[in-house]
């Protein structure tokens, strides 16, 4: 049973544009939602994370928007650059009281930023 659904599977954005990736979860016990960036042959790198008590978090060009009632969250990459071309994963974690301290990942979005 997939608990975190991610879309789109792939995304092409022009340089300077906004990249938007969406995720939806089912388990209401999740209380921590990180995004990871992964380049080919490398491990995932933590980008930004949010908890359900806030609706938005911004760090540089990266923003997470969170809708607790809809059980959805999204990553916005402003002013997208060719160096942002990578695979992005959303994830969720319920901690020890929410089903165990393990990350449940989405299926990934392959982002390509064109010049």
């Amino acid at each position: 049973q997939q608990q975190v659904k991610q879309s789109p599977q792939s995304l092409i954005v022009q340089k300077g544009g906004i990249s938007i990736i969406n995720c939806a979860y089912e388990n209401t016990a999740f209380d921590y939602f990180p995004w990871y960036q992964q380049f080919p042959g490398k491990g995932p790198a933590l980008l930004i994370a949010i908890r359900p008590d806030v609706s938005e978090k911004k760090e540089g060009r990266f923003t997470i928007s969170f809708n607790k009632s809809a059980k959805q969250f999204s990553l916005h990459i402003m002013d997208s650059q060719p160096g942002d071309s990578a695979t992005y994963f959303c994830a969720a974690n319920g901690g020890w009281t929410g089903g165990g301290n393990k990350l449940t990942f989405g299926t990934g979005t392959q982002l390509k930023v064109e010049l």
Partner: protein
Amino acid sequence: DAGVTQSPTHLIKTRGQQVTLRCSPKSGHDTVSWYQQALGQGPQFIFQYYEEEERQRGNFPDRFSGHQFPNYSSELNVNALLLGDSALYLCASSSRMTRGQETQYFGPGTRLLVL
């Protein structure tokens, strides 16, 4: 400050063999989680160790086992290798001092190919 390190980087084995992968967590971290990432998919949680014991386990058979040493480093062992075990094996470290241990930092991974 060294990040999460893993060894070896690549490994080729044949069906039925056994393999051991190694991980050293970030300085100051005491918890190690292991994930399996098949090609084109998101990482899947295998298990987690702290205080030298397995604390949480995902949906993986007993052929997958692990160990954590007093210095917090960890090993992942896979017995009776199957072709389907071919994947990138990721180690993630975290600290029990952070709320709920949710923030996990990944190493570069070990690419295992089973022939």
